[in-house]
């Protein structure tokens, strides 16, 4: 196994998105270069996640501007509780069943004079 083959997977491995197969793992255990690269990717990953906990202070007027923009908005539709969704689902099921029953009853009607459905 050469470094080239392993290198493409080191960043994903450091991010916990991939695992090295046994051959690749053996290579890393014996290759200082790949060990160093994996360690560097892990440091970058750790640093990435810590960046998120730093916020940049926006301009002083931005919050007011956002809130003023919202003032002009009409009230949005309220979130539907889960029960409302279930009721809707049940209503749709009943309507569907009725539709099937109507189609079935029409299919059972006798044929017309010309052999067509009446």
């Amino acid at each position, binding site marked *: 196994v050469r470094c080239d083959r392993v290198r493409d997977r080191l960043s994903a491995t450091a991010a916990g998105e991939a695992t090295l197969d046994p051959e690749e793992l053996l290579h890393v255990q014996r290759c200082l270069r790949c060990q160093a690269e994996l360690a560097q990717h892990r440091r970058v990953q750790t640093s990435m996640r810590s960046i998120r906990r730093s*916020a940049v202070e926006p301009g002083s007027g931005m919050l007011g501007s956002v809130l003023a923009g919202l003032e002009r908005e009409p009230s949005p539709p309220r979130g539907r509780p889960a029960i409302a969704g279930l009721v809707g689902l049940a209503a749709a099921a009943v309507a569907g069943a009725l539709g099937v029953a109507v189609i079935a009853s029409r299919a059972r009607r006798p044929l017309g004079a010309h052999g067509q459905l009446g």
Partner: protein
Amino acid sequence: VASRRGYAAGVHGTPQRIESHHGGPCRSAATGEESIRLLVLAAREGDRPAFDRLVELTHRDTYTLALRLTGNREDAADITQEVYLRAYRNLGSFRGDARFTTWLYRITANCASTHMRRWRRHRHDPLADDDLVIDLRCDGDPEGNAAAADLRSRLAIAIEELPPKLRAVVVLRDVYELSHEAVAEELGISSNAARVRLHRARSRLRAQLFPDLAEVSSREV
């Protein structure tokens, strides 16, 4: 219905606000998340002050993400405005199976992507010295913190210098921990394209931060 006065302290407040509510810089993330969850519930029931409070608590995060994605303060402010309008209009569709902040990140990513495509602007303002960066980490290991801070600072610069397409993917995936699928969906690219860009971005960042290994050739072991 919750009242403004009853709302708990937020996610990313100013240092002064943090001191006044919590007596120190180390805040309970769980408390912040629970506060936000309650505010979202109230806002979904039509409590407008609750939504305003959500904006107050999250706007620094939203602005910061927008700035990291666009590299431009004016664009970031425009995007932040748009994010909250969209969030307000679509609050009823927020199911609560993800964190509200994650939902906001996705809206921000989508708005930033749309914004950048629309204007085709590549304006880029590096973080100025007078930009106030609020550090919310707890202190415990001064030497380790100094080294970590140095790496973080260099990483922030390296991220800013990435091409916008690579920057967006790596910021959303590695800094804000959105899934590959969410990143791809909000940026309007395939999941495979997102993975390729992510790999390129990570490789560039590592090579820039640790250039010593770049000259070492590949070998078989």
